[in-house]
């Protein structure tokens, strides 16, 4: 047997459930999962790695679209899978497609911000796609498979 320097894969998964706190943190009102939402942004917006919270600035606007977007279906608990003495992956994917039904979004949009509406709308991730407009129709985002290699959010070590 030998010891190996590594981040523990369980820790990666526990980051996703706010188990560890190295600094000041919000007081959590419940031990249940937070509510995450998905907001769409027009092509001239600037949402990226520096985005810290949801903002209505340059969010899409149109018929049947509510500012802030829609709630993400979260039926998947985060998983953490170890692959070697040094490597592992924690991952999470929404459990259903994100759907905006019967909307008219006339200004081209190309990105979605996933954010935590329970924790002061703090940002999680931005995903981009080919710009779209929608007229009296549906816009849906189908999620990738929830796995170590394709999950929507992954924290990994090698």
């Amino acid at each position, binding site marked *: 047997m030998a010891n190996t320097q590594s981040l523990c894969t369980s820790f*990666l998964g526990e980051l996703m459930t706010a188990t560890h706190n190295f600094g000041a943190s919000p007081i959590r009102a419940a031990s249940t999962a937070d509510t995450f939402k998905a907001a769409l942004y027009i092509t001239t917006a600037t949402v990226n790695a520096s985005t810290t919270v949801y903002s209505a600035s340059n969010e899409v606007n149109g018929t049947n679209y509510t500012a802030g977007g829609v709630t993400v279906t979260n039926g998947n608990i985060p998983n953490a899978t170890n692959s070697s003495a040094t490597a592992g992956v924690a991952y999470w994917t929404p459990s259903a497609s994100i759907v905006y039904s019967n909307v008219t979004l006339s200004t081209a949009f190309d990105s979605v911000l996933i954010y935590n509406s329970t924790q002061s709308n703090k940002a999680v991730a931005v995903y981009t*796609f080919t710009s779209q407009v929608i007229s009296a129709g549906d816009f849906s985002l189908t999620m990738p498979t929830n796995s170590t290699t394709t999950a929507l*959010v992954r924290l990994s070590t090698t």
Partner: protein
Amino acid sequence: MLVNTIHGEMDDSLLVKKEGSIDNDNEFTTWVEYWLDGELVHRSAHVTLKTSLFTQLEAAEIG
């Protein structure tokens, strides 16, 4: 088949249907449009995300 349009539900026999798709490393997207006399009256799009985002973490060596 009735199609929801910006003018309300319309029978698709009255409309010109256009479909397309985009397939690249990031996404597979399909879209459908219905046109009435040169006017876009319905457009839906469905994006399947292929690329996940990941963050690489590592433990620094001590000493």
